[in-house]
């Protein structure tokens, strides 16, 4: 680089109006900050974001970034996560993060990854989207990203409807669930169609690793994130995260609802490598789907008295749960520390910061 170029670079850099870090702001509460900063985990998603109370997606995103650590770049489809984390001029992210559009998270991630390759950098790239941005409008970009073998982990936060726009059905909405565009009525019992089997479609790309996870099993989530990031090539993680607003349950019951989705067999937790099933979380005690449905307003019409359709749809959903268990071999063969009962077992943890 000649001297003229050096000057020019300096001039361009000076235009970059980066202010001092918030850490240097004397108005900050030093005491609290110290504890916050001393947390023995990486805080990829900081407090102060505007998610609803008990938001499953916020939790999932927090877990994903914690597991990924600082040397990562995130891309984010339009949706709740994007809106509640980055109302200008604030951001809750502590890792480089970028949002462009609803349907292009996988594509901008492809570009970021290409740039990392071009610059010889090893920073990992994680593309994120909700189920709308993944199952539906962003699917083409996702499929292209997987096919082109980009070294990107795509994480889909699956809350089973378009929540950002006010709870409209998506390809991921489960059968019979009520949304504002699949309301129950004289002629309908909620969504007529089935939840799209996205994971099988992803698996058909024969990528090295694809898995489903649930916020009810955080250690499983972080393990799968780390596993995916340890692999070179495209990987995919589908994380089930309840939406208290859209599903109609108390924010305090987010985990309970998520756990029941797994324990009933309605949301199987599986791992696929090159399209083949290589791991499942076995279900130790299968719960009846009514335990799960009964907690959520979106299935309220399935408990209508004197409506034969309600029972029929309940039986239908039970049959789907049973089918999942049979197809994925989820029935536990004896107790397993990593099954649906064991995977969330707590212990006294002596790690103190």
């Amino acid at each position, binding site marked *: 680089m000649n001297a003229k170029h050096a000057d020019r670079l300096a001039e361009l850099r000076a235009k970059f*109006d980066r*202010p001092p*870090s*918030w850490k240097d702001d004397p108005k*900050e509460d030093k005491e*609290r900050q110290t*504890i*916050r900063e*001393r*947390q*023995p985990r990486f*805080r990829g*998603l*900081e*407090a*102060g*974001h*505007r*998610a609803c*109370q*008990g*938001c*499953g997606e*916020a*939790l999932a995103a*927090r*877990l994903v970034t914690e597991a990924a650590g600082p040397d990562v770049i995130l891309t984010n489809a339009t949706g709740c996560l994007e809106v509640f*984390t*980055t*109302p*200008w*001029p*604030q*951001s*809750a*992210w*502590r*890792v480089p993060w970028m949002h462009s559009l609803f349907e292009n998270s996988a594509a901008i991630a492809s570009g970021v990854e290409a740039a990392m390759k071009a610059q010889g950098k090893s920073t990992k790239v994680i593309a994120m989207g909700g189920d709308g941005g993944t199952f539906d409008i962003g699917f083409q970009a996702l499929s292209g990203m997987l096919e082109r073998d980009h070294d990107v982990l795509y994480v889909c936060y699956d809350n089973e409807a378009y929540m950002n726009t006010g709870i409209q059905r998506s390809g991921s909405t489960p059968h019979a669930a009520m949304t504002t565009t699949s309301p129950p009525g004289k002629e309908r019992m909620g969504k007529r169609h089935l939840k799209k089997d996205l994971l099988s479609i992803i698996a058909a790309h024969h990528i090295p690793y694809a898995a489903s996870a649930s916020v009810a099993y*955080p250690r499983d989530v972080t393990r799968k994130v780390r596993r995916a990031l340890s692999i070179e090539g495209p990987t995919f993680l589908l994380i089930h995260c309840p939406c*208290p607003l859209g599903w109609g349950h*108390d*924010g*305090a*019951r*987010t*985990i*309970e609802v998520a*756990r029941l989705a797994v324990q009933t067999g309605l949301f199987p937790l599986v791992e696929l490598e090159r399209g083949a099933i290589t791991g499942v979380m076995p279900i130790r005690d299968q719960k009846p789907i009514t335990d799960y449905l009964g907690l959520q307003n979106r299935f309220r019409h399935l408990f209508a008295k004197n409506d034969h359709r309600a029972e029929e749809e309940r039986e239908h959903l039970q049959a789907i749960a049973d089918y999942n268990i049979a197809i994925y071999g989820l029935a536990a063969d004896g*107790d397993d*520390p990593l099954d649906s*009962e064991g995977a*969330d*077992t*707590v*212990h*006294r*943890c*002596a790690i*103190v*910061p």
Partner: protein
Amino acid sequence: MVTLTRGTYALSGTSLAFKTGTWRVERPVHKHWAAPCHAACPAGEDAQAWIAKVQEKKLQQAWEILVSANPMPAVTGRVCPHPCEQGCNRGSYDQPIAIHNLERFLGDEAIRNNWAYPVPKKAKASAPTVAIVGAGPTGISAAYHCIRLGLKPTIFEALPEAGGLLRSAIPMTRLPRDVLDAELERIFALGIEFKPRHRLGRDINLEELRQDYDAVYLGPGCQRSKEWSVAGAVPGDLADGLHLLKEWVDHGGVPNTKKVVIHGGGNTAMDIARVLKRHGAEEVHLVTASGLPGPDTAPDDILNVVPRELEEGVEEGVIMHPHANLKRLLMRGSKLVGVEMVSLKKLPTASGRKARVSFEGTERVLDADIVIPCIGEAVDPEGMERVLGGSNYFRPDDWGRLSGQDNLLAGGDARGDRGTVSAAVGDGRKAAIALAAKLIDGVEPEGAPRQPIDIASLNLNYFQKGTRAKAPTLPVEERTDHAEIEGSLEWSQVSAEGERCFSCGNCLACDNCWTYCPDNAVLKTADVAVDGSHYVFDYDFCKGCGLCATECPCGYIEMIGEPE
């Protein structure tokens, strides 16, 4: 702040400027409940608290917490009927934690490693003095807690050695005497003045004690057998169970009998039954008005025997007759040849209170050559006639304070409503607390016990079913008068058993609140969490969703309304 207009980007973590705590209408707070094991322990031990240290593998700290209530874990771990285990929430889930085994393990470890008893408050030279009558469990406990609280205790004991019933009546098969000696020696070494062979009413008198000492604590136990007869009849060779047990403990002598009927359902009854069985009695019948533990028996109707002792007794061939009473003695002259039994049960009466009702037509006869009453004892009033009045027992308040008697307290078996070593230990502790409060600080003792937490308040999703640790026991054919029947747990068993604890009502430090908070509003810290938990809520950001409270496995987080 510089505006980031070009491309409207934002800087890392700047959302901290936005305090989402203003969204909250309810806030989570830590609420430390009493674990049911704690609430059930007459000695006042917080088993949850010391098991937490076992989980951390900090055994000495666990023991120190334990002995902050009970100085004799090696003893109580062996002899206590462990109501803590009956209270344990784990019992409604799979099996209760083997708390007594853990307690015993810690007690034994302390002896083996000679861990020092912590003394938080050393007595000054001018410290108030306390005379303690009786070196049984309650007297020893009172003296020990006096030491801990800065008082100067002196124990007066009629016998040459300390220990009370522990030494005189508990079978060596349950409590090896070297364990008792080791534990007591270490306690007395803390500076307790001990005056053996000082019998109240003979060698010392109460009034002088009350003059010489700032306070007196009476823990004389129950040394006098109660009157016993069946429908007015008494065999000529009658001896009560406690007497026989003491003789056997003292020099190994037992009556030579073939068919024995034991009347009563406590530990003394079971102990003597097993001694006689081992010494060759063909049949030993235990007749008790109470029921056996089981789903059909009301909790207040279960016979008061350490469960494992009952189990071992039955193993050894003691024949149980629950829900039965003696109606008549069959005598040939003054010599017993049999007893007539009748079935009964505790049933509600017209007044609503329960009373035992015999069922006519259920009478049957047992051949017997001896009947041994084990219906309990009363306080020997010698030297305490004036304070005891005409009663069998003392009736002090919960702190042991006798009404109308300044600085005179009583507790232990002499209360008549206790009946276990642990209760005696608890009485001694409370008396010491009351005395220290009054004599040192001139205040009333503080005692606002925490409410116990029930299993419905726990989140059991986070636990797995498991099997309770089982200590080795001697096979029936190897049991003798001396060898201890129940053995110790291995460390691996202790560790696994500790892991099973639900940590009811107290922080398990499991990280659930920290892990599940979608808002990063739970911060992990041991330094700042003054409430003993490992976490603080950052109310600047907590939105009050309540997820942490729902998912706390231990019921330790409560949502309370924000002030209006």
